[in-house]
């Protein structure tokens, strides 16, 4: 299956991924979330926030 990076528009092969999995774009390196596994739909992965609590 082929996915498209929403950041750089690169198309690349993906196999055996599951919905919710985080994968890197092989072209631009950005982290992507598999929003749908079949057909593959990719979105930018949630970013890491910080807070001071426990």
């Amino acid at each position, binding site marked *: 299956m082929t996915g498209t990076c929403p950041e750089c528009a690169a198309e690349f092969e993906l196999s055996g991924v599951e919905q919710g999995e*985080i994968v890197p774009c092989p072209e631009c390196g950005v982290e992507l979330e598999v929003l749908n596994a079949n057909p593959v739909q990719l979105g930018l992965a949630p970013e*890491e926030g910080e*807070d001071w609590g*426990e």
Partner: protein
Amino acid sequence: MASPSLLETAAPGATVANPEDVDLLHRIVTIESLSDGEGEAVAELVRQMAARGFDAEVDVAGNAVGRIGAGERHIVLLGHIDTVPGRIPVRIENAVLHGRGAVDAKGPLCTFVAAAAAAARRLNARVTVVGAVGEERMGSPGATAVACWPAPDLCVIGEPSGWDAVCLGYRGTLSFIYELVQPSRHTAGPGESAAEQAVAFWNGIVAHAAALNAEIQPTSTFGTITPTLRSMASDGDGMADRATLSVGLRLPPGVDISTLLGTIQALAGPATIRVDGAQEGYRTEKRSPLVPPFLRAIRAAGGTPRFTLKLGTSDMTVVGPAWGCPIVAYGPGDAALDHTPEERIELADYARAIRVLTDVLEAL
């Protein structure tokens, strides 16, 4: 069962927690459980877990431990039942439960119990829920005992990430007491007083942390070494002068504590350094096998998932390095309310977190 007065406060149209789940949280929050005084709350949690089908007991460390489900894989849900001091009248107003520990971390702990019970018949794994003692005090004895168990396949730490967020890591901590005692001296005479030397030591700690941060070049506060002067005192009786400092450092993962302590000892000169807490930071990656089911479940519950890194410390830093298994922290509540007089949790968020974790456990 929750009293009618508890149930009728749920906001109409909102995500409403199961009355039994609200009753569980209300009961556990109502019982005061400061570190080293958790016995009554632990006993109640064991009773509540047993009533929900867990094989429940108090372990040798004093933790509440409940086991449910069957399967090859073992999942540990590690929460803590102790709280910091500060009595907040326990009440439910406008579907918000107020009380010490509602967020940190009885809300997440009761989420674990409720979700594991709800998922019990569809579990493909053995799930162990732990209400650990002593997380809020140095040494975290409950989690330290649990860390000696064989490593599970997966672990979730019960802390308030927010119902729609997955926490990936915590900073570590090093805390110590600096004490300098020297013969009393005339203030017009040569040399530095004990208090002056203590101040110089603290300034040295700040400068050393700044130098390490310059080497690390952190891109976030999580990656930064942060020193804190917690308290200071000095006195004398005419024979000896004394100065004491209580110092804490928050440490990003990767900082070697023994090397850091060597520098601290050198800066302290003739003063003594008594370490009262040391735990290296720990973080996991977004590609953890625990992440996909959480992201799916949060989206299914109507949320937009987030990742968080915490500037404080939790039991993830105790069991994470010991077990090396996939690990994240999760639980409802706003961590900004931790340890404050305003501690409270929205019951809708509690309900959403139970739904999310139930989905996660059924998927694993």
